[in-house]
C-alpha cells in the first residue's frame, strides 16, 4: 500500500463557491436529491408499516399513510402488549423480552469492539512502527484472514465452542471476534504508518519504551481513527446475525438481531408480523443511531482517510 499522509484534512473547506446556477449544477443537485430520496424512502416505509395494524395491512398495500394507525407494534416489541392485544393485531403469542435482548446486544457488541480495537491497535503498532524479524510475513498472513469465507470457519468454530461447552454463553458470542479482525489491524496500521517518525523518536529519547510510547504518544494521537474504527466495528458487531443464531439462540443470551426472528413466519406458509418486524428494526437501529449522532461528525469526517491513501 502507499504511505499515509498524516495531515488531517479539515473537511471544512468550503466547496466550490455556491451561487452560480449552471445547468450542470442543477443536474448534479438533482442526482444528489434522487440518491438521498432512494436512501431515505425505505426508512419512511418502515415507519409507516410499524405504525400500521398487521391484520389489515395488506388491504391497503399502496397507502402512503399507516394503515389503521396503531402503536401496537411498538408496544409488542417493548413487551408492553398483552398476549390478546398482540394476537389481535397479527402479532405472535410469544413473549418478547426486549430489554434482555437489548442488554445482550449492547454487551456483546461493546465487548467485541473493545477487544478488536485494543488488540488491533497493539498489533497495528507492532506492524507499523517496530522492526522485528518476520514482521512483513506475519502481517501478510494475518491479512489472508480477510479472504476466509465466514461460512468456512463458522461451523468448525461452532464445533469448537461445543467442545469447550460454551454454546449459549456470552463467551461463545464474543470470542471468535474478540482477538482480531483483519480489518482493524489493517485500518490502524495504515494510519500509524503516517505518523511522523520524529514524534516517536522524541518520546524514545526521553527514555520511554515502546509500551509507554504506545500508550502515552501513539494512542492519544490516534484518537480520531480509533473512534472511527470503534464505531464501525460496533455497527458490524451489532448487526452480526449468523453466528449469534448458531451459538446464542437461547433466550438469556439472545441478541436483538436473532430476536427479530420472533416476528417472522411462525407456521409453514404463515404471515410474518410486518409491523412488529419494522418496529423492532427501528428500535434496534436506535442505539446505533444515537451513537452515530453523538460521534457522527467524527465518523463522517474521518471515515476511511486515516485508513487509506
Amino acid at each position, binding site marked *: 500500500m502507499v504511505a499515509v499522509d498524516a495531515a488531517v484534512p479539515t473537511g471544512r473547506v468550503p466547496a466550490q463557491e455556491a451561487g452560480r446556477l449552471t445547468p450542470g449544477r442543477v443536474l448534479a443537485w438533482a442526482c444528489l436529491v434522487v440518491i438521498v430520496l432512494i436512501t431515505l424512502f425505505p426508512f419512511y416505509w418502515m415507519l409507516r408499516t410499524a405504525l400500521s395494524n398487521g391484520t389489515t395491512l*395488506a388491504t391497503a398495500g399502496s397507502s402512503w399513510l399507516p394503515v389503521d394507525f396503531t402503536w401496537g407494534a411498538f408496544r409488542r416489541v417493548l413487551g408492553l402488549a398483552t398476549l390478546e392485544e398482540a394476537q389481535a393485531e397479527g402479532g405472535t403469542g410469544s413473549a418478547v423480552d426486549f430489554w434482555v435482548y437489548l442488554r445482550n446486544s449492547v454487551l456483546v457488541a461493546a465487548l467485541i469492539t473493545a477487544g478488536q480495537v485494543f488488540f488491533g491497535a497493539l498489533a497495528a503498532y507492532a506492524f507499523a512502527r517496530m522492526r522485528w524479524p518476520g514482521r512483513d510475513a506475519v502481517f501478510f498472513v494475518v491479512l489472508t484472514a480477510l479472504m476466509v469465507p465466514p461460512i468456512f470457519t463458522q461451523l468448525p468454530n461452532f464445533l469448537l465452542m461445543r467442545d469447550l461447552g460454551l454454546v449459549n454463553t456470552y463467551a461463545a458470542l464474543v470470542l471468535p471476534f474478540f482477538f482480531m479482525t483483519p480489518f482493524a489491524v489493517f485500518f490502524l496500521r495504515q494510519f500509524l504508518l503516517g505518523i511522523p517518525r520524529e514524534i516517536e523518536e522524541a518520546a524514545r529519547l526521553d527514555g520511554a519504551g515502546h509500551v509507554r510510547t504506545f500508550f502515552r504518544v501513539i494512542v492519544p494521537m490516534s484518537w480520531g481513527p480509533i473512534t472511527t474504527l470503534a464505531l464501525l466495528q460496533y455497527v458490524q458487531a451489532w448487526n452480526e446475525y449468523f453466528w449469534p443464531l448458531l451459538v446464542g*439462540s437461547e433466550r438469556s443470551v439472545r441478541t436483538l438481531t436473532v430476536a427479530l426472528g420472533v416476528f417472522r*413466519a411462525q407456521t409453514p406458509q404463515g404471515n410474518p408480523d410486518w409491523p412488529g418486524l419494522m418496529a423492532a428494526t427501528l428500535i434496534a437501529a436506535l442505539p446505533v443511531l444515537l451513537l452515530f449522532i453523538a460521534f457522527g461528525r467524527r465518523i463522517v469526517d474521518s471515515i476511511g482517510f486515516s485508513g487509506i491513501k
Partner: protein
Amino acid sequence: MKRRLTVAATALLLALAPGCAAERPPADSGGWDETGEVTYWMWDANQLPAYQRCADDFEARNPDVDIAIEQVGWDYYWGRLLTAFVANSAPDVFVDHTSKYGDYTTRGLIEPLDDLIARDGPDLAQYVEGTGDLWVGDDGRRYGLPKDFDAVGLFYNAAMAREAGITPEQMQDLTWNPQDGGTYGDVLARLTVDRNGVRGDEPGFDPRNVETYGLGIDYPPGGGSGQTQWSFLTATLGWSHTDKPLWGTRFNYDDPRFQETVAWWRSLIDKGYMPPVEQSVGTELSQLMQAGRVALVSEGSWNISTFAKLGGIELATAPTPIGPQGHRAAMTNSLADSIAAGSPNKGAAWKWVRYLASPECQEMVARGGVVVPAIASVVPTAEATIGAHGLDITPFTRQLHEGTAFPFPAAHHAADVDSIMESAMERVMAGSADPSSLTAANEQVNALFTQG
C-alpha cells in the same frame, strides 16, 4: 524449496489428524431420570397459550418436573433443532413433523416409544383414524404420539363469490377433472376479473391484465408432496405419490395422471386465472387474498386462525372438489411430540409427552381454537371453538370423517426429493419445461433410493 514443501505438508497432516478424530457423532446415551427440567420446543406461536396452560396443569400434578416451553418460528425451527442436536443442547421433547422425523430416526436421535406405550398407554384407539399410523417409522417402531391433525381445503372470498353469482351451496359441491376442470374450473374462471371488470369466463377477458385472479399459487409450487397445491387433485384420479402410502421407495411422478393434472394446473396461468409463478415469490397467499389479488386458495387447516384474523375481508371455507371417480381427496398430516434420545431425563420427558397426549391437555388445546386435536373425543370441541372464531373447519375435517383423507407420503431422502421436485415443478410452472419433463425428475428421485 522442495524440502520446505515437505515440511509444510507434514505439519499440515499433523494438524489435520486430531481434526479428523474429533468429528465423532455426539454422545447419544441419554438417561431416564424422572425429575428435573424438561425443555419443550414448538413452532406455532398461536398455540403457545394453550400449551402453557397444559404445562401449568402438568407442573401442578408433578411438582418435581419443570416444563420450559420455547417457541421457535417455523422459519428457523429445523435449522436450530439441527444445530442444537450437534451441540448436545437439543430440547428433551419437541414437536415433530412427518416430513422430517425420518431424518431423526435414521440417525438415532429420537426415542422409540413402543415399550413405554405398552407399559403406560395411551390406548391408541383414542385417536382419529389414520393419524397415529403416520408416526410408525419404516423400522416398524413408533416415534411419536399424534397431537393434532390437519387437512387441505379451500378458502375463498365470500363477497367476491356473491358478486360473481356463486352460491355457498355450489362451493360445497364442486367437481373437477383434468380435461376441462369441471365446476371447480368454472368457478375459478368466474372469480377472475380483469382491469376492465370483465370476468374470466366472459368474452373480451384480457388474461394479461388481471385485477383479481381466481386461484392463488404458492412459491415454490409444491415440492415433492404438493400438499396444499395439487395433491388434492391428483389423489381423486387414484394416483398416489409412492408405491406404498408410508415409507415408499418408488415415486410416481412419471404417471400420466400426475402429469395431466399439472398440465391443467399450469393452463390456469396461461388463461389468466392464476398469477404467473414468478410473481408469487415472496408474498403469502393470505396477504394476496387480503389485498384482493386472489379470490380463492387451497390451503392447510393449520392456517385457519391466520385467515380468520384477516381484517377487512369476508372469507368462507369449502371442501376440495370431487374428482372423476366420484370422491374428494385431501392430504392429512399430523404433528407429534418426540423425545430426544440424548435427553438425560427421558423419564420426566415421557411423563410430559404422556400428559400432552391426554384428553385433559388436548381439551385445553381444542379450546385454544387453533388446531384440531387428534384425540377423537375432543374433535367436536375444537370444531365448535374454531367455528365460533369465524371460519367453519368442517369442510376440512369432513374428509377424515368421510374417509377421503390420505396420509402425507412420509419417505426417506425427503429433503432431496423436495429439492429435485421443487426445481422441476418450478420449471414446468414457469413454462420453461413441459410436464413430461417430470419423468426425468422422477428418475432422479428414484435413483436416490436405489443408490442406497
